[in-house]
Protein backbone atom coordinates (compact mmCIF):
# COMPACT_ATOMS: atom_id res chain seq x y z
CA UNK A 1 0.00 0.00 0.00
CA UNK A 2 1.39 3.32 -0.93
CA UNK A 3 -0.77 5.57 1.20
CA UNK A 4 -1.27 5.03 4.89
CA UNK A 5 -3.51 6.88 7.28
CA UNK A 6 -2.49 8.96 10.26
CA UNK A 7 -4.61 9.21 13.36
CA UNK A 8 -6.56 12.36 14.01
CA UNK A 9 -9.38 13.42 16.28
CA UNK A 10 -12.03 15.89 15.24
CA UNK A 11 -12.30 19.24 16.97
CA UNK A 12 -15.62 20.54 18.24
CA UNK A 13 -16.82 24.05 17.61
CA UNK A 14 -19.62 25.00 19.94
CA UNK A 15 -22.41 26.83 18.20
CA UNK A 16 -21.61 25.42 14.80
CA UNK A 17 -24.24 22.73 14.56
CA UNK A 18 -25.44 22.56 18.13
CA UNK A 19 -25.00 25.11 20.86
CA UNK A 20 -24.37 23.97 24.40
CA UNK A 21 -24.70 26.57 27.14
CA UNK A 22 -21.42 26.49 29.02
CA UNK A 23 -22.91 27.18 32.43
CA UNK A 24 -24.20 23.88 33.72
CA UNK A 25 -25.00 24.60 37.34
CA UNK A 26 -25.59 27.59 39.58
CA UNK A 27 -25.43 27.23 43.35
CA UNK A 28 -27.20 29.85 45.41
CA UNK A 29 -26.34 30.18 49.07
CA UNK A 30 -28.20 32.32 51.55
CA UNK A 31 -28.49 32.91 55.27
CA UNK A 32 -31.80 33.02 57.12
CA UNK A 33 -30.66 35.52 59.66
CA UNK A 34 -28.05 37.87 58.32
CA UNK A 35 -29.00 41.22 56.82
CA UNK A 36 -26.66 40.88 53.88
CA UNK A 37 -28.83 38.02 52.61
CA UNK A 38 -31.96 40.10 52.56
CA UNK A 39 -31.77 40.70 48.83
CA UNK A 40 -30.85 37.10 48.13
CA UNK A 41 -33.84 35.84 50.08
CA UNK A 42 -36.10 38.17 48.16
CA UNK A 43 -34.54 37.02 44.92
CA UNK A 44 -35.12 33.37 45.75
CA UNK A 45 -38.72 34.09 46.64
CA UNK A 46 -39.66 36.33 43.76
CA UNK A 47 -37.34 36.08 40.78
CA UNK A 48 -35.67 32.68 40.89
CA UNK A 49 -38.71 30.59 39.84
CA UNK A 50 -39.06 32.53 36.61
CA UNK A 51 -35.32 32.63 35.94
CA UNK A 52 -34.98 28.90 36.55
CA UNK A 53 -37.96 28.12 34.34
CA UNK A 54 -36.39 30.17 31.55
CA UNK A 55 -33.12 28.24 31.82
CA UNK A 56 -33.92 24.55 32.03
CA UNK A 57 -30.40 23.64 30.87
CA UNK A 58 -28.91 25.01 34.09
CA UNK A 59 -29.21 23.04 37.27
CA UNK A 60 -30.05 25.31 40.22
CA UNK A 61 -29.29 24.37 43.76
CA UNK A 62 -30.37 26.51 46.68
CA UNK A 63 -28.93 25.89 50.10
CA UNK A 64 -28.45 27.79 53.32
CA UNK A 65 -25.06 28.87 54.51
CA UNK A 66 -25.67 30.26 57.98
CA UNK A 67 -23.65 33.19 59.25
CA UNK A 68 -22.05 33.80 55.87
CA UNK A 69 -22.62 36.28 53.09
CA UNK A 70 -24.84 35.06 50.24
CA UNK A 71 -23.00 33.69 47.18
CA UNK A 72 -23.89 32.64 43.68
CA UNK A 73 -21.52 30.10 42.19
CA UNK A 74 -21.60 29.11 38.54
CA UNK A 75 -20.15 25.76 37.46
CA UNK A 76 -19.02 25.40 33.88
CA UNK A 77 -18.51 22.64 31.39
CA UNK A 78 -14.78 23.24 31.26
CA UNK A 79 -14.62 22.31 34.95
CA UNK A 80 -14.03 25.77 36.33
CA UNK A 81 -16.33 27.69 38.60
CA UNK A 82 -17.09 31.34 39.12
CA UNK A 83 -18.28 32.65 42.46
CA UNK A 84 -19.87 36.02 43.03
CA UNK A 85 -20.56 37.37 46.50
CA UNK A 86 -23.96 39.08 46.40
CA UNK A 87 -24.06 40.60 49.87
CA UNK A 88 -26.36 43.58 50.42
CA UNK A 89 -27.55 43.43 46.80
CA UNK A 90 -31.07 44.04 45.67
CA UNK A 91 -32.89 41.15 43.96
CA UNK A 92 -32.58 42.75 40.54
CA UNK A 93 -28.88 43.31 41.04
CA UNK A 94 -28.58 39.61 41.86
CA UNK A 95 -30.52 38.80 38.72
CA UNK A 96 -27.91 40.74 36.73
CA UNK A 97 -25.16 38.76 38.40
CA UNK A 98 -26.91 35.50 37.56
CA UNK A 99 -27.21 36.58 33.97
CA UNK A 100 -23.50 37.26 34.02
CA UNK A 101 -22.85 33.78 35.36
CA UNK A 102 -25.16 32.29 32.74
CA UNK A 103 -23.44 34.06 29.87
CA UNK A 104 -19.89 33.35 30.96
CA UNK A 105 -18.02 30.43 29.46
CA UNK A 106 -16.03 29.63 32.56
CA UNK A 107 -12.68 30.66 31.16
CA UNK A 108 -10.41 32.87 33.20
CA UNK A 109 -10.90 36.50 32.33
CA UNK A 110 -8.07 37.66 30.16
CA UNK A 111 -7.34 40.55 27.93
CA UNK A 112 -7.49 39.53 24.30
CA UNK A 113 -4.57 41.39 22.85
CA UNK A 114 -3.72 38.86 20.15
CA UNK A 115 -5.65 38.48 16.96
CA UNK A 116 -8.36 35.88 16.89
CA UNK A 117 -7.26 32.91 14.84
CA UNK A 118 -9.40 30.36 13.08
CA UNK A 119 -8.86 26.67 12.48
CA UNK A 120 -10.52 27.06 9.12
CA UNK A 121 -8.34 27.36 6.09
CA UNK A 122 -8.09 30.83 4.62
CA UNK A 123 -10.01 31.15 1.37
CA UNK A 124 -7.16 32.75 -0.50
CA UNK A 125 -4.41 30.88 1.29
CA UNK A 126 -1.36 32.21 3.06
CA UNK A 127 0.38 34.90 1.04
CA UNK A 128 3.59 33.71 -0.45
CA UNK A 129 6.20 35.76 -2.28
CA UNK A 130 6.80 32.94 -4.74
CA UNK A 131 3.29 32.72 -6.09
CA UNK A 132 1.01 34.78 -8.23
CA UNK A 133 2.20 37.11 -10.94
CA UNK A 134 0.50 40.14 -9.56
CA UNK A 135 -2.67 41.75 -10.73
CA UNK A 136 -1.91 43.55 -13.98
CA UNK A 137 -4.38 46.39 -14.26
Amino acid at each position, binding site marked *: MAVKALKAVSVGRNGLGAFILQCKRIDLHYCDWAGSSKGMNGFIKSLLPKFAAAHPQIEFTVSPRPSKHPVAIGHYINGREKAICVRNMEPYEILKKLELLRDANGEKLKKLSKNVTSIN*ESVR*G*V*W*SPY*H*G*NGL*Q*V
Partner: protein
Amino acid sequence: MEATLSRPAASALSCCCRTTSTPRLVPGLIRHQSTKARTKRMLNIPKHESFLNPRPQTNHIIFNPPSSEASVYHTPFKFLPKNDPRRRAQLPQLFATSTTIQYPQPSENANPEELPAAFPPELGTKKYHMTKEDVEEMRRLRLEDPVTNTVTALSQKFGCTPWFVMMCVKSPREHRDQHKAREAAIKAKWGPKRTAAREERARRWAMLFRGEI
Protein backbone atom coordinates in the same frame (compact mmCIF):
# COMPACT_ATOMS: atom_id res chain seq x y z
CA MET B 1 11.30 66.42 -13.96
CA GLU B 2 7.76 65.34 -14.37
CA ALA B 3 8.78 63.11 -17.19
CA THR B 4 10.83 60.98 -14.82
CA LEU B 5 7.87 60.29 -12.59
CA SER B 6 6.48 56.89 -13.29
CA ARG B 7 4.06 56.55 -10.44
CA PRO B 8 0.55 56.87 -11.86
CA ALA B 9 -0.80 58.42 -8.71
CA ALA B 10 1.96 60.99 -8.61
CA SER B 11 1.55 61.96 -12.23
CA ALA B 12 -2.20 62.21 -11.81
CA LEU B 13 -1.53 64.37 -8.80
CA SER B 14 0.74 66.68 -10.72
CA CYS B 15 -1.69 67.09 -13.58
CA CYS B 16 -4.41 67.87 -11.06
CA CYS B 17 -2.21 70.53 -9.61
CA ARG B 18 -1.56 72.05 -12.93
CA THR B 19 -5.23 72.54 -13.57
CA THR B 20 -5.69 74.30 -10.27
CA SER B 21 -2.72 76.48 -11.17
CA THR B 22 -1.49 76.69 -7.63
CA PRO B 23 2.02 78.12 -7.42
CA ARG B 24 4.32 75.38 -6.15
CA LEU B 25 8.01 74.92 -5.73
CA VAL B 26 8.29 71.21 -6.40
CA PRO B 27 5.21 70.18 -8.25
CA GLY B 28 3.97 66.67 -7.62
CA LEU B 29 5.99 66.05 -4.51
CA ILE B 30 4.18 68.21 -1.97
CA ARG B 31 1.14 66.35 -0.81
CA HIS B 32 -0.62 69.09 1.08
CA GLN B 33 -2.26 72.42 0.48
CA SER B 34 -2.93 75.28 2.79
CA THR B 35 -6.36 74.12 3.75
CA LYS B 36 -7.80 70.73 4.36
CA ALA B 37 -10.46 71.19 1.73
CA ARG B 38 -7.89 72.04 -0.92
CA THR B 39 -5.72 69.10 0.10
CA LYS B 40 -8.68 66.80 -0.18
CA ARG B 41 -9.58 68.17 -3.56
CA MET B 42 -6.00 67.86 -4.71
CA LEU B 43 -5.70 64.25 -3.58
CA ASN B 44 -9.00 63.34 -5.11
CA ILE B 45 -7.47 61.76 -8.17
CA PRO B 46 -9.65 60.11 -10.76
CA LYS B 47 -9.98 56.37 -10.61
CA HIS B 48 -7.99 54.17 -12.86
CA GLU B 49 -10.00 53.29 -15.90
CA SER B 50 -10.05 49.63 -14.98
CA PHE B 51 -12.31 50.61 -12.10
CA LEU B 52 -14.58 52.58 -14.39
CA ASN B 53 -15.74 49.71 -16.53
CA PRO B 54 -19.42 49.89 -17.25
CA ARG B 55 -21.47 47.37 -15.38
CA PRO B 56 -21.41 44.12 -17.28
CA GLN B 57 -24.62 43.25 -19.07
CA THR B 58 -24.21 39.52 -18.50
CA ASN B 59 -23.08 37.54 -15.50
CA HIS B 60 -19.37 36.98 -15.44
CA ILE B 61 -16.71 35.84 -13.08
CA ILE B 62 -13.84 38.01 -12.00
CA PHE B 63 -10.87 35.72 -11.58
CA ASN B 64 -8.09 37.05 -9.46
CA PRO B 65 -5.89 34.16 -8.46
CA PRO B 66 -4.42 34.48 -4.98
CA SER B 67 -0.70 34.84 -4.59
CA SER B 68 -0.47 31.75 -2.47
CA GLU B 69 0.12 28.07 -2.80
CA ALA B 70 -2.98 26.32 -4.15
CA SER B 71 -5.03 24.48 -1.58
CA VAL B 72 -5.26 20.72 -2.02
CA TYR B 73 -9.02 21.06 -1.82
CA HIS B 74 -9.00 22.84 -5.19
CA THR B 75 -9.08 20.00 -7.65
CA PRO B 76 -7.00 20.69 -10.77
CA PHE B 77 -9.06 20.85 -13.93
CA LYS B 78 -7.50 17.68 -15.25
CA PHE B 79 -8.55 15.72 -12.17
CA LEU B 80 -12.23 16.58 -12.43
CA PRO B 81 -14.42 13.65 -13.46
CA LYS B 82 -15.98 13.72 -16.91
CA ASN B 83 -19.45 14.57 -15.65
CA ASP B 84 -18.45 17.21 -13.13
CA PRO B 85 -20.38 20.47 -13.56
CA ARG B 86 -17.16 22.46 -13.22
CA ARG B 87 -15.88 20.76 -16.33
CA ARG B 88 -19.09 21.46 -18.20
CA ALA B 89 -19.01 25.11 -17.22
CA GLN B 90 -15.86 25.66 -19.32
CA LEU B 91 -14.44 27.94 -16.70
CA PRO B 92 -11.08 28.52 -18.45
CA GLN B 93 -12.91 29.92 -21.46
CA LEU B 94 -14.92 32.19 -19.20
CA PHE B 95 -11.79 33.44 -17.52
CA ALA B 96 -10.09 34.01 -20.85
CA THR B 97 -12.81 36.41 -21.92
CA SER B 98 -12.21 38.62 -18.92
CA THR B 99 -11.01 41.96 -20.27
CA THR B 100 -9.72 43.58 -17.14
CA ILE B 101 -7.50 40.90 -15.78
CA GLN B 102 -4.64 39.14 -17.43
CA TYR B 103 -5.44 35.53 -16.82
CA PRO B 104 -2.67 32.97 -17.27
CA GLN B 105 -3.16 31.05 -20.47
CA PRO B 106 -5.63 28.18 -20.25
CA SER B 107 -4.04 24.83 -20.70
CA GLU B 108 -5.22 24.24 -24.29
CA ASN B 109 -3.51 27.36 -25.54
CA ALA B 110 -0.40 27.13 -23.42
CA ASN B 111 2.84 27.25 -25.27
CA PRO B 112 5.06 24.36 -24.22
CA GLU B 113 8.16 26.54 -24.54
CA GLU B 114 6.72 28.87 -21.95
CA LEU B 115 6.55 26.17 -19.31
CA PRO B 116 9.42 26.26 -16.84
CA ALA B 117 12.32 23.91 -17.22
CA ALA B 118 11.82 20.35 -16.16
CA PHE B 119 13.99 18.86 -13.48
CA PRO B 120 15.54 16.41 -13.22
CA PRO B 121 16.05 16.54 -16.99
CA GLU B 122 13.36 14.44 -18.56
CA LEU B 123 14.32 10.86 -19.02
CA GLY B 124 13.84 9.51 -22.48
CA THR B 125 10.83 7.45 -23.24
CA LYS B 126 11.06 3.88 -22.16
CA LYS B 127 12.73 1.64 -24.72
CA TYR B 128 11.59 -1.77 -23.52
CA HIS B 129 14.55 -3.29 -25.28
CA MET B 130 15.62 -5.85 -22.68
CA THR B 131 15.04 -9.44 -23.73
CA LYS B 132 14.80 -12.51 -21.57
CA GLU B 133 18.33 -13.50 -22.59
CA ASP B 134 19.64 -10.10 -21.57
CA VAL B 135 18.14 -10.51 -18.14
CA GLU B 136 19.57 -14.02 -17.81
CA GLU B 137 22.98 -12.72 -18.84
CA MET B 138 22.72 -9.88 -16.38
CA ARG B 139 21.86 -12.27 -13.57
CA ARG B 140 24.74 -14.55 -14.46
CA LEU B 141 27.26 -11.70 -14.51
CA ARG B 142 26.07 -10.23 -11.26
CA LEU B 143 26.11 -13.53 -9.42
CA GLU B 144 29.50 -14.54 -10.81
CA ASP B 145 31.39 -11.42 -9.89
CA PRO B 146 29.40 -8.85 -7.96
CA VAL B 147 32.52 -6.75 -7.29
CA THR B 148 33.31 -6.00 -10.92
CA ASN B 149 29.73 -6.17 -12.18
CA THR B 150 28.23 -3.55 -9.97
CA VAL B 151 24.71 -2.33 -10.45
CA THR B 152 25.96 0.83 -12.17
CA ALA B 153 28.28 -1.06 -14.44
CA LEU B 154 25.54 -3.44 -15.49
CA SER B 155 23.06 -0.67 -16.08
CA GLN B 156 25.53 1.09 -18.33
CA LYS B 157 26.36 -2.10 -20.15
CA PHE B 158 22.76 -3.01 -20.89
CA GLY B 159 21.45 0.52 -21.28
CA CYS B 160 18.84 0.26 -18.55
CA THR B 161 18.30 1.97 -15.24
CA PRO B 162 20.04 0.79 -12.05
CA TRP B 163 16.56 0.36 -10.62
CA PHE B 164 15.83 -2.24 -13.30
CA VAL B 165 19.05 -4.12 -12.51
CA MET B 166 18.10 -4.25 -8.85
CA MET B 167 14.66 -5.53 -9.76
CA CYS B 168 16.15 -8.33 -11.83
CA VAL B 169 18.89 -9.67 -9.63
CA LYS B 170 19.94 -9.76 -6.04
CA SER B 171 23.65 -10.10 -5.32
CA PRO B 172 24.90 -13.15 -3.38
CA ARG B 173 24.32 -13.09 0.35
CA GLU B 174 28.02 -12.97 1.32
CA HIS B 175 28.53 -9.98 -0.94
CA ARG B 176 25.60 -8.22 0.65
CA ASP B 177 26.91 -9.02 4.12
CA GLN B 178 30.33 -7.71 3.23
CA HIS B 179 28.79 -4.57 1.88
CA LYS B 180 26.76 -4.07 5.02
CA ALA B 181 29.79 -4.67 7.22
CA ARG B 182 31.78 -2.12 5.26
CA GLU B 183 28.97 0.38 5.57
CA ALA B 184 28.67 -0.26 9.32
CA ALA B 185 32.42 0.27 9.72
CA ILE B 186 32.17 3.60 7.97
CA LYS B 187 29.21 4.63 10.09
CA ALA B 188 31.05 3.66 13.25
CA LYS B 189 33.72 6.19 12.41
CA TRP B 190 31.24 9.03 12.19
CA GLY B 191 31.42 11.61 14.91
CA PRO B 192 28.41 12.74 16.90
CA LYS B 193 27.65 15.68 14.60
CA ARG B 194 27.50 13.66 11.44
CA THR B 195 25.45 10.92 13.11
CA ALA B 196 22.96 13.47 14.43
CA ALA B 197 22.79 15.15 11.03
CA ARG B 198 21.96 11.86 9.33
CA GLU B 199 19.32 11.08 11.91
CA GLU B 200 17.80 14.49 11.49
CA ARG B 201 17.72 14.10 7.76
CA ALA B 202 15.83 10.83 8.05
CA ARG B 203 13.43 12.40 10.51
CA ARG B 204 12.89 15.33 8.16
CA TRP B 205 11.98 12.97 5.35
CA ALA B 206 9.46 11.21 7.58
CA MET B 207 7.98 14.55 8.58
CA LEU B 208 7.71 15.53 4.94
CA PHE B 209 5.81 12.38 4.07
CA ARG B 210 3.48 12.89 7.02
CA GLY B 211 2.77 16.39 5.73
CA GLU B 212 4.19 18.12 8.80
CA ILE B 213 6.66 20.33 6.95
